[in-house]
């Protein structure tokens, strides 16, 4: 069965607390809980399956993972007891600066080895399976292989899975001009564990992952294609702002559930 749920955000806390049946699982963004008490984390993680999602571990940065960020991440994992953890296929910091934003990496062998090493280190430190997420980016970096081959090789080397962000895939396919289904069908379907989905925005002739919009029809269709292709275990709506009435989110969750059930 595919679980359907939400990325937990403070403005949604009241609704989540009423235990609506549409929310079958929650994704906790680890950084949002770094400054919160043990009790607060335990309370949010009670009652439903949870997954812990990282933003700032910067797996593509050379050298060991930042020890302070890793310790804080581990604490959230230990308290919330997630089924798996996730991070992005990106870097957010360099040896000199914290960019604060997911920045793409070229699909090279050197990058493959570096991310594999850091992914294994993260998974072992947290004692949980790790899945890695595709990001959106304005710039595309050339490498020694295409992105799906890079992802397949990474999963094989690091023993990790994939979190396919359907919206990011859609946006990249539009902005960079490729077929998202062709991209998808090059992935090993057995590696795809979880999906993210949220509406995109369009301005200045480009598509953006603003995380502020309702999910559009073409995204539901792409989500259906992924679910048909791979044994997806969970789908998370990743809304970060412009929060709608809970009933609208509940309706989106039901639509995704219908996609999973093939209705």
């Amino acid at each position: 069965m595919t679980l359907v749920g939400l990325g937990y955000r403070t403005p949604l806390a009241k609704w989540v607390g009423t235990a609506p049946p549409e929310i079958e699982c929650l994704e906790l963004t680890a950084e949002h809980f770094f400054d919160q008490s043990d009790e607060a984390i335990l309370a949010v993680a009670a009652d439903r399956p949870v997954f812990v999602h990282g933003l700032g571990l910067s797996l593509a940065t050379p050298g060991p993972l930042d020890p302070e960020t890793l310790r804080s991440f581990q604490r959230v994992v230990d308290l919330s007891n997630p089924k798996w953890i996730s991070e992005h296929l990106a870097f957010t910091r360099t040896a000199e600066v914290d960019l604060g934003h997911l920045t793409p990496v070229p699909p090279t062998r050197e990058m493959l080895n570096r991310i594999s090493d850091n992914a294994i280190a993260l998974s072992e430190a947290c004692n949980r399976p790790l899945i890695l997420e595709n990001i959106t980016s304005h710039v595309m970096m050339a490498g020694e292989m295409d992105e799906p081959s890079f992802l397949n090789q990474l999963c094989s080397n690091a023993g990790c899975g994939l979190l396919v962000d359907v919206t990011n895939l859609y946006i990249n396919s539009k902005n960079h001009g490729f077929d998202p289904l062709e991209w998808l069908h090059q992935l090993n379907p057995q590696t795809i564990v979880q999906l993210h989905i949220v509406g995109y925005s369009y301005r200045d002739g480009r598509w953006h992952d603003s995380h502020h919009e309702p999910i559009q029809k073409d995204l539901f269709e792409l989500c259906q294609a992924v679910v048909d292709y791979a044994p997806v275990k969970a789908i998370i709506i990743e809304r970060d702002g412009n929060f709608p009435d809970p009933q609208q989110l509940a309706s989106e969750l039901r639509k995704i559930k219908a996609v999973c059930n093939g209705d």
Partner: protein
Amino acid sequence: MAIDLTTALGRLLTDPALRSEFFQNRAATLETLDLDPAAAGVLQQIDETTFERQAQGLIDKRFHEVMKMLPMTLRLLGEDASRTFQEYAGAFWPDGHRRHLIDAVEFCRYLRDQKRGPVCRPEQNTVEFRLSQRRFRIHLVTDYYVHDKRRLAIQVLTRSNDGVPGQNVWYLRFSYGRSIRN
């Protein structure tokens, strides 16, 4: 000393002058960056337009986050808000999981030190409180805005046992000074 590809990308994304120099003469800039050949090969192929967009995206993201915490301060800056933030943001990059709060506090400091515009004090108090470990703070403020009208107010900031910050404000019913107009 040789640097890795992410460090080179970080420098190029955060330094407009270096970026401009790089796109005018890639080979010369790559030589000064002292990259290994594979990393240099990646940078040689980067598209200028989309890379500029990527760099601007970093600043836009920070501006968007700061706007959520300092909406009135940015409204008081008016049409200059975005440009003023860009000037500030190019010279300072906050670090860590509290970077957006640090960014907001530092932007307030920049506005005050550089005399670039007014800072809405209750907003600054709130972000400074969130950044601190304090359980309680009380402020008398003269620029609390209600329906775009400036009022005298007492701002009480608290933090729950779970670490969640909260705020209560008591303000006088009469307003004074200029109202904000869009």
